[in-house]
């Protein structure tokens, strides 16, 4: 399965935030959406999920317009991990994760044994089985993020769509999360992730959409597209490049 944005203009209330955007991403690939604050990363993510309609151009799913898909179908294509979850009701973690099965349930159906098994499996993949019966409102920010990813896995969608998933995580959890995402993409899942940290995007197999302003953007493979010069232009700050002992490229602002 392949997602492609063609001449896409996105925004809300008819205010165009970005236009003429092009990118494409297939299952098993990782696409990083990178850019400074206010450039509309979240808006673009919501457009990809069809929570906001495109203002011009289109998003194609295997060459069909996204508007041809209903919510249930989209729920099987994209699994969304929101940036912050302001949530009032203390659902148990396992129930929260079970909700990922909704796109597969018939009209008035509730989750069955098979759905529970898939949910338990996701808990195991993310190593959070101990959280199973805790109330979602009572766990830490990092744990919440993992639960939401477990829910997305339970959704068995083709693409995982994450909006700045590391923004509330400490250093250790941030690294852990990125490793999990890489593992998932190697197992064949597509990952679309908005981030503000260029170093997240330095992945051999990754693609990057570097947003600069209304019509200015760079799209391509991570290693080729992410250059010192472009980052300096986009973030309007001096950038230095360093290499770790394992020959991994790291960007540092100076």
């Amino acid at each position: 399965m392949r997602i492609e944005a063609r001449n896409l203009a996105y925004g809300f209330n008819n205010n165009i935030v970005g236009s003429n955007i092009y990118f494409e991403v297939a299952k098993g690939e990782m696409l990083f959406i990178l850019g400074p604050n206010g450039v509309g990363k979240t808006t673009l993510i919501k457009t990809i999920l069809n929570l906001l309609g495109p203002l011009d151009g289109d998003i194609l799913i295997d060459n069909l317009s996204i508007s041809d898909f209903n919510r249930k179908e989209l729920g099987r294509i994209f699994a969304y991990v929101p940036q912050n979850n302001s949530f009032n009701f203390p659902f148990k973690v396992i129930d929260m994760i079970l909700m990922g099965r909704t796109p597969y349930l018939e009209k008035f159906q509730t989750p069955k044994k098979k759905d529970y098994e898939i949910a338990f499996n996701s808990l195991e993949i993310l190593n959070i089985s101990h959280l199973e019966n805790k109330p979602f409102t009572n766990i830490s920010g990092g744990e919440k993020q993992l639960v939401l990813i477990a829910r997305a896995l339970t959704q068995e969608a083709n693409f995982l769509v994450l909006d700045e998933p590391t923004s509330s995580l400490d250093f250790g959890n941030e690294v852990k999360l990125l490793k999990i995402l890489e593992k998932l993409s190697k197992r064949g899942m597509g990952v679309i992730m908005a981030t503000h940290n260029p170093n997240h995007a330095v992945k051999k197999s990754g693609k990057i959409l570097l947003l600069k302003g209304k019509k200015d953007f760079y799209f391509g493979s991570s290693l080729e597209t992410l250059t010192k010069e472009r980052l300096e232009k986009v973030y309007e700050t001096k950038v230095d490049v360093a290499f770790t002992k394992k020959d991994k490229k790291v960007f540092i602002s100076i």
Partner: protein
Amino acid sequence: MEANKNFAKKTIIGVMVLIFLTIISMSIGRYPINAKDIFLYLIGRKNLPPEVVTILFKVRLSRILSALLIGSSLALSGAAYQGMFKNPLVSPDILGASTGASFGACLGMLFSWNIFFIQISSFIFGLIAVFITYVLSERVKDGDNILILVLSGVMINTLFSSFVSLIKFIADPYNKLPSITFWLMGSLASVDYKDVLFLIIPILIGIITICLLKWKLNILSLGDEEAKTLGINTKKIRLIAIMASTLMTSATVAIGGNIGWIGLIIPHLARAIVGPDYRYLTSMSIIMGGIFLIFIDDLARIVGGLEIPIGILNSIVGVPFYIYILINYRRDWS
């Protein structure tokens, strides 16, 4: 699985309390009848004089049944609203259903329509009020849908309560005003089996609809965007749930007048017992709503020797409770 067993146990206890309370309530009244005798009669171990049977089943049981139906449906509507609006502090009144229904009934009383048309009018205006609220909020483009819906509800509530005041203002102060005022306070003193029959159809439709949607209500309580990405047509489901709740709320207003607070209080108590999951919360709200209103109606009959309107009793119990929830509602209840 573990949760299921636990839930079954709690449901059975709830139903038993309900049956027990029903028998106790049948024994209460101007002509006291021994609760034990009623129980023995019900299981066929004892005969009662025919006039006692008439009091029990013609007079008292119809009142208890309407309290059960009204309490259950108001509690269930409240539970549904709190999930749909992602807010534990809302109840069915917020979209204007009860105020609209009150206006419809007052209008009927003003023109001295017979009771059947008063009920129909109450019902229709309840639906109209919610319909206007809904259309109004749809006309506002984008923005926070739920906030706009609630704000529209506030406006429509204000509008219809002004209409009610207008009717009170022009009503004949010796004849009609007292009956309108008393009815608005909420009371089950004059219900009979005709009322039970009138209640039962819309309430069953409403209860069945909401119970069928219980899993989707879980998803809606995550908020609009997340619910959509989980494959839910939020607009459609919300519209169906609002219509079902309005159907129930208007029917109850038509029979019992304004009976507030149940929709707010009971879902909280039910949530404290079975957690926020609508797979369990729906049935627990139904059971507890029934228990609560039968109990309050008993109080209305016993306390003070004259019929205190249950609307008033409910508010006296409800307000302190509301304050308690307001202060503590983020606490973990599961």
